[in-house]
């Protein structure tokens, strides 16, 4: 909003005044009722509504300390919908959910209960919760936006049985505040009066229970009305939900935490945070810097940094501010949005690049730290980012601080970037060595650690199930079994009651069952087949028709249905190493939507007519179809067929040999055409500058009892690329279509170009090997990466590509209305528009795109689609949500793979087992060690050349190696150790042989880290989550492989 040209001065003064008014605390509230006046409702002319105007007089204190008297109107009406299914009065419930009528009672929580026990009310098992407007406003007022939004989402979620009753706008349930009445009594009076109104409104059919923690309210109100019960939360849970153990435990834990909070006065440990107004003003004036706190993975205790997002007016690009030490971090937790004040230049420090983690015993700063960076201290937290944390209760070995009551435990978070959390609990002994989900309640400036309470016990640490649950909780992944209500709304397909295609649907769709040879290629054992392909010649061979047929999920999952909501909140199927959590229930994902071989299925198709010779597109057709997949191939089989191997196609085994030959030839012909087309498409994209990147992907092969038998790196086949290319092509064309039809509200996937400074490491590393990397455009990058291949060592190229992958920014979903046209570019694929269309069974974004495409088809035909599409704002929200969930899914998948890698090596004895000895490549040099990559297992890890006693590694002539005293010298591309036994130098990309050792190395390390408990020692491999620290245990030991010795000798100066 912009001030009017005239009267600017006046307006500004007034608005400032309002600012004070809205922000300040409410001192007193007195109300007076004016005479009853009919106010005509202009909206509904025929139905005259009577509204009563009253006035609220608020006394507000401005931030300058002045008191202001503000008069606000307050309109009351008789008809406020109750949102109850048992309503006798015929309230107008236009939309939104209703409370079921078949409950025994409704529960109305008091203000205090909503403030402190919202978590309990969030349990889905509690039904019939009526939140009052009084309570909601109090929550918004005292707990802030975040908590309030949580409540709002709860109210919107159709899976929870709770509604909001606007009691303060109801004529009879509204109580004006009396003179001298305290806020608390007034609020409970309001809530009680709302409860009484509800009871009377439902004509006494439903009992109302008001729960409160205020004993006074219980005594005052409990005997006033029959049918309206006033009891405490504990009594309520015990009487009405005796079997709901989770609620009882949560209640006990929250109670405990609240009790602890009271009467805790100690000396100040941290500086106080500044009030939000001061922060905001400081940020605007440039005195403070705003950013998200990111705690260092390597040195979580001391080092953290914040990335500013171009908030300061001087620089447009972001820069990094270091926050050193926990005093300067001032109670901020990883992920919080904080305001930082820069320290004077003399106190600036550099980032530590050494590998070792000893605090205090750092190499005295001279070569351990790089050039000083801007350093600051946190002066306030703008937005807490507290989520559920997984912690481990340490064993009680007397090292715990025994404060005045021994029930307070310092629990160690799984994510070591999070500080320890103080938990008060009665079950400390029972929970030893267990992993527990906790929430942080508060962190006072007088306390060294934050206070929290436990929510849920996951299990004993070290057990596979516990660890997998831990990964899920830490990534905020919530994937409970699908609810019955959701399953009820889905179609059935059982042997007694088989599902068949609907003739009415077939009439509307294009039937490809007879005309096209449709087949799918997927990984072996895949159940959710969402993409199939077809290719055939048209018009006597001059035209080629390529078709991509995608499962028509949106036919089964209509917008707004329970399945849709659940799928939206999951956003993707979560694949872990040993299991997966489906986005859609199995009846859809593995059966009705899945394009299985030999059955009729609905599909959404894109078909191109290509010129057979030049492969130029002459026509594109999008639409709904019916398909029957003839072959359900897997990659290895398809590749074998292409290579001309004698592989048996299961679909053809039963046929006679002649027929089998013919069919087989037909299939192979189709596969070959497909490969031909996709090579052409690939070449086309390569010319545009598409990148070929490399990630490390290792699959843990499991046997029946979920024991790991081997770690298998993925083997790329050409047919993988063929299928991927067709999918990319389909995605691209669909993106074009929806973007053109809906220029403001189409969901695209864009990949912003990477920031040049991220390439520094790549360029430096490549230079060490004599290659130059041009990173100016994606085309230049792709070409220079192709050139940077060492004929003797294919690994160099692979490593370089891996580093490129790390430098890339993340591809993200976005709404076209939220970005400008040139932002749609997909850097990695070199396409101007891209989206996800081909996997609707496992990605929600594809479901959205399917709906958009269907709507685009409808618009083209001139038929208005039934439901309005989400606007740009809604779509952007969806996109952000999916992005967040995708990130979480990716992290969870990585962590679970790492978990299995750890489990694999845990069982091996490094001294005896040959599998623990592997070839590794150095890819980065640090001050006192190197970072190495083991291609066989796809793991990376640091290799220490200097241990904590200051001994360095020296390599004997026999390839053995031992710790000796000496020094380490680091140069840009090499690191050398000098000791009594001579000097050895390690260069980038040198091959070393590593022994992957876990158990006793881990023990050794843990023993030196006094803060770690014994429990972690035994299982430190799964506790430490990230790549670096995960395999810190991987250490360079010896050059035992005889082939490698000459190479290393050559580099030994």
């Amino acid at each position, binding site marked *: *909003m*912009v*001030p*009017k*040209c*005239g*009267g*600017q*001065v*006046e*307006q*500004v003064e*007034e*608005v*400032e*005044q*309002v*600012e004070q*008014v*809205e*922000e300040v605390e409410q001192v007193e509230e007195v109300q007076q009722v004016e005479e009853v*006046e009919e*106010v*005509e*409702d*202009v*909206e509904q002319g025929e139905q005259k509504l009577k*509204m009563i*105007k009253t*006035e609220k007089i608020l006394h507000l204190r401005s931030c300058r300390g002045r008191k*202001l*008297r*503000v*008069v*606000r*109107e*307050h*309109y*009351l*009406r008789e008809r406020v*919908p109750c949102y109850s299914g048992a309503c006798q009065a015929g309230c107008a419930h236009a939309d939104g959910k209703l409370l079921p009528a078949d409950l025994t009672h409704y529960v109305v929580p008091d203000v205090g209960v909503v403030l402190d026990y919202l978590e309990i009310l969030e349990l889905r098992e509690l039904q019939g919760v009526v939140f009052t407007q009084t309570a909601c406003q109090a929550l*918004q007022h005292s707990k802030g*936006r975040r908590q309030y939004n949580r409540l*709002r989402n709860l*109210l*919107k979620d159709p899976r929870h049985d709770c509604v*909001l009753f*606007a009691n*303060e*706008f109801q004529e009879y349930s509204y109580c004006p505040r009396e003179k001298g009445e305290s806020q608390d009594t007034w609020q409970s009076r309001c809530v009680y009066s709302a409860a009484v109104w509800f009871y009377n409104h439902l004509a006494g059919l439903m009992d109302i229970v008001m729960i409160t923690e205020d004993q006074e309210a219980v005594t005052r109100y409990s005997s006033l009305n029959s049918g309206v019960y006033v009891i405490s939360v504990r009594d309520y849970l015990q009487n009405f939900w005796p079997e709901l153990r989770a609620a009882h435990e949560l209640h006990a834990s929250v109670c405990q935490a609240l009790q602890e909070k009271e009467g805790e006065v100690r000396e100040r440990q941290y500086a106080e945070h500044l009030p939000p107004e001061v922060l*905001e003003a400081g940020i*605007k004036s440039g005195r403070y810097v705003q950013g998200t706190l990111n705690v260092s993975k390597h040195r979580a205790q001391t080092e953290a940094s914040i990335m500013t997002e171009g908030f300061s007016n001087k620089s447009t690009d972001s820069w990094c501010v270091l926050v050193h030490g926990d005093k300067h971090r001032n109670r901020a937790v990883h992920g919080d949005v904080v305001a930082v004040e820069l320290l004077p230049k003399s106190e600036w420090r550099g980032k530590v690049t050494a590998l070792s983690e000893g605090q205090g015993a750092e190499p005295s700063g001279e070569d351990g730290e790089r050039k000083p960076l801007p350093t600051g201290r946190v002066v306030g937290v703008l937005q807490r980012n507290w989520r559920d944390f997984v912690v481990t209760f340490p064993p009680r070995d007397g090292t715990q601080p025994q404060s005045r009551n021994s029930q307070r435990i310092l629990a160690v978070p799984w994510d070591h970037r999070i500080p320890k959390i103080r938990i008060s609990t009665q079950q400390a002994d029972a929970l030893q060595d267990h992993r527990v989900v906790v929430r942080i309640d508060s962190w006072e400036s007088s306390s060294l650690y934050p206070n929290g309470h436990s929510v849920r016990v996951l299990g004993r640490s070290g057990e596979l199930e516990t660890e997998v649950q831990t990964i899920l909780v830490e990534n905020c992944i919530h994937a409970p079994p699908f609810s019955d209500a959701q399953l009820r709304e889905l179609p059935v397909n059982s042997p007694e009651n088989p599902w068949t295609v609907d003739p009415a649907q077939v009439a509307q769709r294009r039937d490809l069952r007879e005309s096209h040879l449709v087949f799918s290629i997927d990984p072996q054992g895949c159940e959710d087949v969402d993409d199939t392909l077809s290719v055939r010649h048209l018009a006597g061979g001059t035209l080629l028709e390529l078709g991509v047929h995608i499962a028509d999920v949106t036919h089964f999952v209509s917008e707004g249905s329970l399945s849709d909501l659940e799928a939206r909140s999951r956003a993707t199927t979560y694949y872990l190493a040993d299991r997966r959590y489906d986005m859609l229930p199995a009846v859809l994902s593995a059966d009705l939507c899945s394009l299985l071989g030999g059955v009729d299925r609905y599909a959404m198709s894109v078909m191109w007519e290509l010129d057979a010779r030049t492969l130029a597109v002459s026509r594109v057709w999008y639409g709904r179809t019916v398909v029957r997949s003839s072959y359900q191939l897997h990659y290895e089989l398809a590749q074998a067929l292409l290579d001309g191997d004698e592989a048996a196609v299961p679909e053809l085994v039963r046929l006679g040999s002649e027929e089998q030959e013919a069919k087989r030839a037909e299939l192979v012909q189709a596969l070959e055409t497909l490969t031909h087309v996709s090579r052409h498409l690939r070449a086309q994209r390569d010319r545009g500058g598409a990148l070929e990147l490399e990630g490390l992907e290792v699959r843990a092969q499991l046997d029946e009892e979920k024991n790991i038998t081997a770690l298998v790196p993925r083997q790329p086949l050409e047919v993988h690329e063929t299928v991927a290319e067709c999918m990319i092509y389909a995605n691209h064309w669909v993106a074009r279509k929806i973007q053109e039809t809906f220029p*403001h509200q189409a969901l695209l996937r864009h990949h912003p170009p990477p920031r040049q400074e991220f390439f520094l490491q790549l360029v430096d590393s490549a230079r060490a090997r004599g290659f130059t990397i041009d990173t100016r455009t994606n085309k230049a990058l792709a070409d220079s990466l192709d050139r940077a291949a060492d004929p003797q060592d294919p690994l160099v190229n692979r490593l370089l590509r891996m580093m490129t992958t790390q430098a890339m920014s993340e591809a993200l979903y976005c709404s076209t*209305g939220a970005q*400008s046209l040139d932002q749609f570019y997909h850097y990695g694929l070199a396409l101007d528009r891209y989206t996800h269309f081909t996997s609707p069974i496992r990605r929600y974004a594809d479901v959205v795109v399917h709906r958009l495409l269907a709507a685009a088809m409808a618009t083209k035909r001139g038929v208005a689609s039934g439901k309005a599409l989400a*606007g740009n704002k809604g779509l952007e929200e969806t996109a952000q949500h999916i992005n967040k969930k995708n990130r979480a899914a990716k992290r969870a998948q990585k962590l679970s793979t790492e978990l299995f890698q750890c489990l694999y090596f845990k069982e091996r004895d490094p001294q005896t087992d040959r599998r623990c000895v592997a070839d590794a490549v150095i890819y980065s040099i640090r001050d006192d060690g190197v970072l190495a990559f083991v291609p066989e297992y796809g793991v990376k890890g640091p290799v220490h050349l200097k241990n904590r006693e200051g001994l360095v590694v020296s390599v004997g002539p026999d390839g053995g190696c031992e710790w000796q005293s000496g020094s380490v010298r680091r140069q840009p591309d090499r690191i050398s150790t000098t000791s009594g036994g001579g000097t050895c130098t390690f260069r980038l990309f040198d091959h070393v042989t590593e022994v992957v050792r876990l158990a006793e190395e881990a023990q050794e390390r843990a023993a030196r880290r006094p803060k770690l408990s014994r429990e972690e020692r035994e299982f430190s491999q799964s506790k430490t989550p990230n790549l670096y620290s995960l395999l810190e245990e991987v250490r360079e030991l010896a050059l035992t492989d005889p082939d490698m010795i000459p190479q290393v000798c050559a580099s030994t100066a």
Partner: protein
Amino acid sequence: MNSVAALCLNIPDIKRCIQTEEDRTVTVRTLLLLSLWSCRSSSPGGAFGYVHSAADTWGVALAVRLPFIRSLRKNMAGLELLSDQGYRLDGRKAAELRKVQARMGVFAQADGSAYLEQGNTKALAVVYGPHEIRGSRSRALHDRAVINCQYSMATFSTAERKRRPHGDRKSTEMSLHLKQTFEAAVMTQLYPRSQIDIYVKILQSDGGNYSVCVNAATLAVIDAGIPMRDYVCACTVGFVDETPLADLCYAEESGGVSSLALALLPRGGQIALLQMDARLHQDHLEALIEAAMTACKGVSKVLDEVVRQHLQEVSSLTGE
């Protein structure tokens, strides 16, 4: 003289006059002021000469008014103007007006007077005239009456008492807006070479000052017996969460809403004045104007009732 029909400004006309940004994503209107008067007094091509040179003031406003913008942002975060259930801060629904109460003929000495409350905004309007031109004779128009408007706010009209010097920019602008509105509505051609004075004072301010002034002044003009084409009814409309909110109160006005003020001659549906100083997407404008027109018609019903009741009282007094 143009007929009323020719002066009528309908939504398509307005839309034509609105500049659209090239990408169609954001339409910036710093000040859009259209009136029958401006339409009449200038050539069709540059019809809307009164539309301020928005771009240059915009930059200045931004630079100087940072605290202003910030406070808006903060309020947007702090207050929920429209709840999920569809209630506003004071318990009204989106399209509901505040309570309107009015009395005509409050002062005997003036030719016409009226007192009007719209919620907690209270205004007093007094009309003198038509009489011969006071002061410089050169201001007189040979074919119609001159309308002279003066807007002022009482020192006690806001939460904190404040001296309000006469003739500050805000009240000068408001006076000008009132003048334009009433030049469009009053049949000035009946009184050539004369002058009509309209004085409006805000006694208590709680949002929608302009519209309350227009509504009060309408009653005062009627009380003075000056012929008008129709009632002029005004109302403000704000835009929150894709919903137009009718008749904003002060808390809503200052809560960072893009608001639009509209004065309407309800019977013919002609717009006498349309003013908006905020950003709004072009697509929403039509819905907003539509809502404002509905709200104005609601106001006109109340005013009509007041006038009829007043007439009854007066006629019973005079014994007719």
